[in-house]
């Protein structure tokens, strides 16, 4: 049986993982756009 505290901890870790994925996706998109801008002489 899972304790409520464990459930809370799992929810926290899941939310953190989702935030990390979001940050990584945004970073990848940012690097892509910056590369395009630099290549076009911006």
């Amino acid at each position: 049986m899972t304790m409520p505290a464990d459930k809370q901890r799992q929810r926290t870790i899941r939310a953190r993982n989702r935030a990390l994925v979001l940050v990584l996706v945004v970073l990848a998109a940012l690097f892509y756009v910056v590369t395009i801008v630099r290549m076009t002489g911006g």
Partner: protein
Amino acid sequence: MTDLGEVRAAGFGAAGVRDYVAILKPRVMSLVVFTGAVGLAVAPGHLHPVLAVVAVLCIAVGAGAAGAINMWYDRDIDAVMRRTAGRPLPAGRMLPGEALGFGVVLAVGAVLVMGLAVNWVAAELLALTIAFYVFVYTVWLKRRTPQNIVIGGAAGAFPPMIGWAASSGGVGWGAIALFAIIFFWTPPHFWALSLYRSGEYAAAGVPMLPVVAGPGETKRQMLLYTLILWPVAVAPTLLGVAGFVYGALGLLLSLIFTATAVAVCRDRTDNAARRMFAFSLLYLFLIFALLLLDRGGAGWV
């Protein structure tokens, strides 16, 4: 092999996304972002809008990283002061190593991205700012001298200079003028706060000026710094960075700032200090907003 129970008992995994945001000191970050963006906007030169956004983002992340490392180092005194006891580290929701690792990774990332995407002058200034805040202010000065926020205040004054360098590729007199405005604004701003929080600073062993020299000397020095701000606030106009309307309004705001300092000198309660602290935030925001509007309005000359 690490036992999962031990890891959980140590608190790993207790820090949520909000805690990670909180250790970046978002309120401080907002002022840093604003002044950095204004520095970027008023500087001579042109920066592609995407790169301008990246530059401001790097300034924000760099400031947040410095804040995280500061919270890691100051976790012992944060636990003593009521204002900071609820922060993730003293509250036990985050392990010290997590905060330090987070701060260092963000600091290195922000400097590298600034250098690779924008230019290395801005990146070096960003690195200098983070290092100054962490090593000079947090580690060296904060617990040793009542001049901690006078010298350490330079760290908060660098962002518009970084923005300027991001746009122009260098540092001119205009950038130094923007730096000086924040540098001379910082002491009266923080001393107004520490006047009505002096008990907490004393309990934590932080030698803020009201704790060491008393409220009378603190109020006198606050008044002195607001007087220095008169010519400093007008300097962008004298240097041709801003127009005369900015100069006139900047001087008017500085006069009001001095009036709040005079009120603090005459007040024996904390009320005037609280009002001055609130006005100091408005003062800096308005000064930089006027600089931005001035540039947008082509000088207002």
